[in-house]
């Protein structure tokens, strides 16, 4: 099923022509409206007209999350603030969020790409779509919501949490499609069993799951336990939110909505562009976005691209499931967490040691973050309650900066393994 068949099945030469024209327009606007992009291009000795075709995109400098932080909050916006109709944000490593802005037209494009995503998962006007992604600054909830409205489905905007009630609504309202993180889907499946219900008590047929990496094995489990088709979707707030790419019914790679987002795969060490089939870091350029165009944004997500035709008939390039990260970012319950954020918190408290380690486990299908902190002489007390108070103080500070709760465990001095090179800050025990 297609939402926009002419675009989704466009022949490559036509699609490339559309992309080239849109890319030229984006570069022109970015150069004119965003001092950051202008000075970057000037430093590289480039003028907008030097990017005459898609092959020239490699001349442009990359944009990184650090660039977004340096231009916090509105420095990368390419339109007057009066034209911005929506602000979203994701957590940032310094405690400041990464801010993105949308014009009215951008919101329309977002709804369009999410409508394609939901339609590929089987949604239509008759569907009841339960949006169990969080609503708010996080792009998941509202992104899925606007897409579902465009499709003309009945939207149930329940947001995340309160699982038993979530299931009751699913049963009573006749939800046919669930949108949430894959780990939450599995948790819903478990709670369903605990409530003495079975998939046949629900009308659920499919789910669109994203915002965190998940495996084929986890897909099989979700599909078996909820008796649905589980579709992987991909997006990031820096580019637009969910809807950047999504699987079709073939479940064999995620089709990137290339008429809006131009993908490249690079070697994360050298920055060199890699051919189809080679694993590297995904780099995306928005070619229609007005509010905040992103040029060669380094997603840090590792994957592969293929232009091989897909059995579904879509000609859009496919990306493989995300295989990992080229930096040390962790995704915990859908939230981006960097070890450096933990360091900032610990050093900010003044009394703790800069030696720490993050341990991530998955318990009952939910991610659990434990932060090991070495005790120092200064913070050590012979009274248990002082140390427990300290643990709680660190936990509260971490929770507010990370946006996800963490359990702190004090450990002895020098008990965290020292390394001569890069410190091993993360132990990820999640089996994906």
């Amino acid at each position, binding site marked *: 099923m297609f939402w926009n068949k002419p675009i989704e099945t466009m022949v490559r030469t036509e699609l490339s022509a559309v992309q080239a024209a849109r890319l030229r327009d984006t570069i022109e606007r970015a150069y004119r409206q965003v001092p950051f992009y202008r000075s970057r291009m000037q430093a590289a000795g480039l003028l907008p007209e030097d990017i005459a075709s898609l092959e020239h995109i490699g001349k442009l400098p990359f944009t990184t999350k650090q660039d977004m932080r340096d231009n916090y909050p509105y420095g990368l916006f390419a339109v007057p603030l009066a034209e911005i109709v929506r602000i979203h944000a994701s957590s940032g490593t310094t405690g400041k969020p990464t801010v993105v802005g949308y014009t009215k037209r951008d919101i329309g494009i977002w709804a369009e790409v999410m409508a394609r995503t939901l339609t590929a998962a089987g949604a239509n006007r008759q569907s009841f779509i339960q949006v169990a992604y969080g609503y708010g600054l996080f792009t998941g909830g509202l992104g899925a919501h606007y897409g579902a409205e465009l499709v003309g489905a009945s939207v149930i905007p329940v947001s995340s949490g309160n699982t038993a009630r979530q299931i009751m609504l699913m049963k009573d309202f006749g939800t046919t499609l669930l949108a949430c993180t894959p780990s939450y889907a599995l948790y819903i499946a478990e709670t369903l069993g605990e409530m003495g219900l079975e998939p046949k008590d629900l009308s659920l047929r499919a789910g669109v799951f994203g915002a965190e990496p998940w495996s084929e094995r986890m897909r099989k489990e979700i599909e078996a336990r909820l008796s649905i088709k589980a579709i992987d979707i991909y997006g990031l707030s820096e580019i637009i939110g969910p809807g950047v790419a999504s699987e079709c019914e073939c479940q064999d790679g995620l089709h990137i909505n290339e008429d809006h987002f131009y993908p490249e795969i690079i070697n994360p060490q050298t920055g060199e562009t890699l051919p189809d089939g080679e694993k590297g870091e995904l780099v995306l350029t928005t070619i229609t976005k007005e509010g905040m165009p992103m040029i060669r944004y380094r997603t840090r997500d590792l994957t592969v691209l293929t232009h091989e035709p897909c059995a579904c008939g879509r000609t859009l390039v496919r990306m493989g499931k995300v295989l990992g990260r080229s930096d040390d970012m962790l995704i915990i319950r859908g939230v981006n967490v960097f070890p450096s954020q933990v360091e900032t918190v610990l050093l900010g408290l003044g009394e703790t040691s800069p030696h720490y380690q993050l341990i991530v486990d998955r318990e009952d299908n939910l991610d659990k973050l434990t932060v090991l902190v070495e005790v120092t002489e200064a913070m050590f007390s*012979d009274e248990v309650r002082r140390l427990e108070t300290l643990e709680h103080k660190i936990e509260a500070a971490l929770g507010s900066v990370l946006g996800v709760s963490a359990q702190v465990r004090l450990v*002895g001095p020098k008990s965290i393994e020292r390394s001569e090179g890069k410190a091993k800050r993360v132990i990820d025990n999640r089996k994906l």
Partner: protein
Amino acid sequence: MIIKQISVFLENRPGTLAQVLSVLGEHNINLRAMSVADTADFGILRLVVNEPDLVEQALKGAGLAVKTTPVLAMRVSDKPGGLLAEVQKLTAAGINIEYVYAFAAPAAEEARVVLKVDDLAKAEQVMNGDKVADGGEGPNFYW
């Protein structure tokens, strides 16, 4: 009287107590009293030894988190109500006890009690009024 208690941070995993004891053994230190306060994640080992400064340095040298805390130590008669009488004096003086541990020495017919209190100087004053607290045999409470 006031004595120096050594506190050591212990992770809650096998071998941490053995590590401390082996350091003491290497320095030929005999333990006079000890207790462990435990939580789910860690414990605090509290020690009374007769060479607290040496022990502090030795444990720090072994990479442990160590703290010396002044605590009140006293002897009480080893019979029913012996400790109660002493604690009542502290209560009367409005002193709060934060933690306590005690050992009976049946041969000496007395018990030795270590108390962490919120007002150490005042507690010592209160206790010095009683000859049982420090039998006037000099300052050696480290047994």
